[in-house]
């Protein structure tokens, strides 16, 4: 008789999903207290306890697993409130992150990247005055040209300590090949100042490329002390309130790990919250019986897309935050500035939407908080899709008059359109931007969206999915009942995951197809064997009972003269000789799927450059289908006019009681949840399954 609970601590709200002893999935929301995130968690759990008529302490004592997602690292990075850090680099290369390999446009949208006077470099997370150069040098073969000058290093470390740094990052040339100097520097720092947080690049990212390695190490040092303090306080508070076990934390790699040790790889929790949603979408996919899922999260300011391929979240090796790279493997999330708050503007007869956002303050015009720019949410209100009296369960009353006024003045009049047509135009443009992003995430990577289901969540996702999903031609658009808290739901049902990576160079020379003669199966088995052992030990150290562990294996492969490589999923292990040939052929096939038939440059030879293993321990829990309520007709159905396709139409309006297994209805229709709105398009049919997912399909 246990509870399982997960919280997703967002900037405004803390969402909590609770799986109760009867197998019912319940959802709670409370305001986030930024200085003390535990308060939001406890507030939601107190609601749950009250619903069950028990004391909070009693409920906590019955929680078997508590896990959570946090924005603490992301916020620290975005607000630049992290540690005061020093950076040690090889002599001659202390400007690495400032030079940034000359790039100034990375991460900028089209308009900004074409505006020369706005084109400036990202600001690094280390102050230039706190970078020190160390006498040492290793070459490309790992030969030591200059041994580490320990006396100089120690003097420099003391200088940084005198500058009162909280953390020091160390990133030396070729350290991924020979980590000795970085390790020795770590020892020296710890001897000089045991309390200072240290990150060495060769630990975090043993891979060629000093810029990514240095930026990642710098970010880790910047975040480390803050994450460490926050996690310690969260763990202590939850224990003090009665939680018996170690809380778990969602990591960017799509899995959970012990919260207490999160700071060692603080850069690994930058996507903690958003990744929960992708994992949640994967579970929805499992419930629907589909292993290929496009997850789409539309909130107030951004639209995030993730992919599940063959039941696994797609992994990306680099994430950009504040236009700087964090190169630890994470669930791939593509994002654009398109959300409910995106502002519509007319310039020279052209209507554009975003990327500027009205944000939460002043917010869309209809919030009545002083915003006068028309936004996507204003358009949704004008079109009758969003009920002004039931936005976020009535927590915010929207003013439809202000929405109409903003759209009339800023869009309808300049374009000579009716207010409704202008609103529908805004919606069409933002919907097409979102489907363009999904296309980039799928088609441009060689996948056909028609082979996927699309899961929509976030505050605005269910309002818009019927449109952008239909545009993509997916068979099914699925909105789970937990759409507004899908991250918390995903975290609730996540696995423990450990990722291990190793750079390596295995080469098959130009001019031969006998791959396995040159790239030996035994070598692959040895590297993967070592990685597996290391991952297994890390899993065991999490303090959670583990039964079965599954391993996913990937290699990074490229044609030899290339610089970019492609990750290839290795299903078979251990390898026999023919498996190696099959692996390379699989790479070539994937490459041609991505770049077109005939694009593979076989004659150039093949190189495997890195190995990666993802070890996954499933934590067993009920699936939440016990939530199912009574079937039959919904309690309350009314109608309302909505504007679509250039005309007002009558639409059925259901409340959340419509979400019961087996209930099916045709669009145009709207389901008003407490915390979001589901729109069913005119040509669509909606059907509720036993997990309370609503699936939209095109009506025959």
């Amino acid at each position, binding site marked *: 008789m246990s509870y399982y609970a997960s919280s997703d601590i967002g900037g405004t709200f803390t969402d909590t999903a609770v799986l109760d002893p009867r197998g019912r999935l319940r959802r709670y929301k409370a305001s986030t207290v930024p200085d003390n995130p535990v308060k939001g968690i406890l507030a939601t759990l107190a609601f749950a306890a009250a619903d069950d008529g028990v004391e909070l302490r009693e409920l906590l004592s019955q929680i078997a697993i508590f896990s959570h997602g946090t924005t603490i690292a992301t916020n620290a990075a975005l607000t630049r409130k992290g540690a005061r850090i020093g950076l040690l680099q090889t*002599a*001659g*290369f202390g*400007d690495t992150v*400032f*030079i*940034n*390999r*000359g*790039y*100034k*446009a*990375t991460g900028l949208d089209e308009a900004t990247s*074409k*505006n*020369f*006077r*706005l*084109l*400036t*470099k990202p600001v690094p997370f280390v102050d*230039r005055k706190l970078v020190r*150069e160390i*006498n*040492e*040098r290793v070459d*490309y073969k790992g030969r030591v*040209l*200059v041994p580490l*000058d320990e006396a*100089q290093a120690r003097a420099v470390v003391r200088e940084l300590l005198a500058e009162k740094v909280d953390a020091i990052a160390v990133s030396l*040339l*070729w350290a991924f090949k020979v980590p000795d100097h970085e390790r020795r520097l770590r020892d020296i720092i710890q001897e000089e100042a045991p309390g200072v947080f240290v990150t060495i690049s060769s630990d975090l990212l043993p891979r*060629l*490329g*000093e810029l990514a390695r240095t930026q990642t190490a710098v970010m880790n040092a910047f975040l480390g002390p803050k994450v460490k303090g926050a996690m310690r306080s969260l763990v202590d508070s939850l224990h003090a309130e009665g939680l018996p076990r170690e809380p778990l934390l969602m990591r960017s790699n799509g899995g959970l790990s012990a919260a207490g040790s999160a700071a060692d790889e603080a850069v690994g929790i930058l996507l903690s919250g958003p990744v929960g949603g992708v994992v949640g979408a994967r579970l929805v996919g499992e419930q629907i019986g589909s292993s290929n899922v496009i997850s789409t999260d539309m909130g107030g300011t951004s639209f995030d897309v993730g992919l599940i391929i063959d039941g696994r979240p797609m992994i990306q090796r680099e994430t950009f935050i504040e236009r700087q790279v964090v190169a630890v493997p994470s669930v791939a999330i593509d994002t654009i500035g398109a959300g409910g708050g995106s502002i519509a503007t007319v310039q*020279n007869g*052209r*209507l*554009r*939407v975003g990327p500027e956002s009205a944000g939460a303050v002043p917010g869309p015009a209809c919030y009545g908080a002083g915003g006068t720019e028309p936004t996507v949410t204003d358009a949704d209100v004008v079109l009758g899709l969003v009920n002004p009296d039931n936005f976020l369960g009535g927590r915010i009353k929207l003013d439809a008059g202000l929405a109409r006024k903003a759209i009339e003045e800023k869009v309808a009049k300049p*374009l000579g359109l009716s207010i409704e047509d202008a609103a529908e*135009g805004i919606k*069409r*443009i933002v919907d*097409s931007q979102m489907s*363009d992003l999904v*296309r*980039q995430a799928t088609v*441009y990577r060689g996948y056909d969206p028609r082979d996927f289901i699309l899961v929509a969540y976030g505050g605005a996702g269910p309002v818009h999915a019927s449109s952008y999903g239909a545009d993509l031609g997916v068979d099914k658009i699925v909105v789970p009942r937990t759409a507004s808290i899908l991250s918390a739901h995903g975290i609730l049902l996540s696995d423990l995951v450990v990722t291990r990576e190793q750079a390596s160079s295995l080469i098959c020379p130009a001019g031969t197809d006998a791959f396995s003669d040159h790239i030996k199966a035994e070598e692959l088995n040895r590297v993967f064997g070592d990685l597996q052992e290391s991952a297994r030990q890390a899993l065991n150290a999490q303090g959670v009972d583990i039964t079965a562990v599954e391993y996913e294996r990937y290699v990074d492969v490229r*044609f030899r*003269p*290339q*610089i*970019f490589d492609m990750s290839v999923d290795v299903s078979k292990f251990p390898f026999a000789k023919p498996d190696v040939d099959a692996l390379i052929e699989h790479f070539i096939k994937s490459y041609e799927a991505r*770049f*077109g038939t005939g694009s593979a*440059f076989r*004659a*150039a030879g093949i190189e495997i450059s890195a190995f990666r293993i993802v070890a996954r321990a499933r934590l067993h829990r009920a699936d939440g289908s016990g939530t199912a309520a009574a079937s039959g007709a919904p309690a309350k159905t009314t109608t309302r006019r909505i504007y679509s396709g250039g005309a007002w139409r009558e639409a059925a309006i259901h409340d959340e009681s419509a979400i019961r297994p087996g209930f099916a209805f045709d669009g145009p229709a709207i389901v008003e949840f407490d915390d979001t709105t589901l729109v069913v398009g005119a040509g669509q049919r909606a059907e509720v399954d036993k997990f309370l997912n609503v699936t939209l399909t095109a009506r025959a």
Partner: protein
Amino acid sequence: MNAPIDTSTIPLSLRAAGPRPSPRGKELDPITYEVIRHRLWSINQEGSTTIMHASGSPVVHATDYNFGIYMPNGDIAVSGTFYMIPLCTMTMMIQLINEKFAGNIAEGDVFVTNDPFIASVHQNDVQLVAPYFHDGRIVAWTGCMAHLLDVGGKEPGSWVPDARSCFEEGLRIPILKIARAGELDSGIWDMILGSSRIPLFVGNDFSALLASHRVSHERLRELCGRYGPDAVHDTMLQNIASTEDEMRAQLSRLPDGEFSHAMYYDHDGHTNKVFRVACTMSKRGDQLTFDLRDAHPQIEGMGNASKAGTLGAIATALLGTFGQELDWNAGLLGPISVLLADRTIISAEPPSPISGGSVTANWIASAAATACVAKMMAFSPEFADYVCGPADGSWLLAQFGGLNQAGEPFAIMYMDSLGWGGPAFRSRDGVASGGSLIVPAGGFNDVELHEKTSPMLYLWRRELVDSAGAGQYRGGNGIEYSLAMYDSEVLFGTLASHGVALPDQIGVLGGYPGSVCKYELVRKSDWQSHLASHGRVGKHADLAGERKALEAKTSMQFFPGDVVNMIVQNGGGYGDPILREPARVAEDVRNGAVSLETARGIYGVVVDAAGNVDETATKARRAAIRAGRLADARMPSPAKGKSTAADSLQWGPALKVGSSASGLTLSCGACDAQLGETDGNWRDAAARRNPKPEELGPHLRLDERFVFEQLVCPHCATSLWVDTRRKEDAGVIDFRLN
């Protein structure tokens, strides 16, 4: 000695010639238009990333490539943000194909050229364009290019500084079909690969370029399938028209007049000769004409650019200056015409050498054009934030080849040279180590990637203190990188640039020029033992060996022990440096961007050991700088005439300019002092002086044939303008307002 002006020249357009295309479908609603426009940009980006991902070349990886979508007539519709010049020359290429291959353009065809005398920039920049057909009709062209690392010729890497004709250089491919109806022409493929020293790399790059067409055509097919080919065509058309409207409106809001600037190109690959290129820009209503006929005749050495390369460079400068709020497409170039004389250094024809055609005199022309635009925009409060000096000074070529440490043939061009400092603006400093406009979204590779694949070891790669042009806002400091021959017995290298004899990135409105560039060589140096014994090589001067200051252009062999240090030209300042806030200068000192000596000597800011400003000493020092300027300045004849009227125009922070019966009435923008009337050249009303290079910046040099000319207010001594002039040349007249 200037070239005789050929007045017969016909103005050249930067758009495709012939009638403007007309819409094909019914009227587009603004919503569908925006939906398609957004998708086209996303397709364009996909084309770009395909090249980058599929290419194996470190040079392509470091963004020496681009991708664009064009109208059926060749007008550019959607432009990528990497190497810009060829994006514009592909318009000419498509136009020529439409003429030469009329009736013979089929679905699946891919055309190639790299011939600068036809429609390219230099031989390394290979351009591929392909028509996209839908329902049997061309809807658009896609165009892409990349710098291929070797296309033959007498030097590895195909840059030939000492060539006397183009016949000593790499393969020139006329416009021809490399693929016919989807089938690769293996004969042409073999011919191109066969002329390269590194066929494997070149073949890989060609695969990448072909893949980008394939991928983008698939996306266009989907888009046209969804919205119809006419809607896609008309969206591009309307986008161009809308940009052109906005461009014309911008021009209309700027003052009419003529604006001039002259620049010099140094070293022809044989000797250190200099060549002048002057630009006069006239602006009438919504039209802009660049008259570049006053340019030196074509030369028998490195320095020539073809008409295509020059027009491409001018177009690039315009996208960067006028295009800040506009979509980049042919519409922006519609109101522009360019006058070029025949067979000048910026309109060279065979048999002129042309291997440097991407980065030589056409950069000078484009810098002069940028300076003219700045001189005009400085009159407009609306465009005051756009004003900056030339963004791109020179390409500091560092090309090496031979056998690498694995004994395989290799060629590499270090794109690190892209790390120059950008120009300052009215309210911000220039971008350090990456300020280029010519590759706006570009950058270069990791040190580790270079060391892994090429037999050279970096002693440092860092930003060079004091290398930016000083100013109220300063330019960006630039990169300095030092390479030691390593794990190789012999390498062949080509080091070629301009801007060694004089700086090209001048400042504006009283700001100072950025540093000149240079190559520093030490033969048979002790770098390895120095490194071992000292733990680092602090600076180039610390090395023992045979020290040699290289000329602007050399090709030579390198042997073990040789070290070469590369210093680039950098962004010019904006406004007088003694007007820079002292606190900013102190912060620059603490950050290592400005030295204590420069803070004191040039900015007049005295910073103490703790890094704080000594206010009293600063005040005194700045007064001394002003006094020093007036002490050696040639004063204008005493001011006469009436004061400037209330409706006079402000020329940046430097001047107030009004008109009078005899010409201009002028007053100082800083102290308001009346400078009097002149009959047309404002410089006649200012005090003139010829500062020594070191007075403007520690990394500045000036050939003895030139002088720096600084114009200062005869009353308050504020710096109003600084540039260079060849001693025997008359200066230009910066502006004549109508």
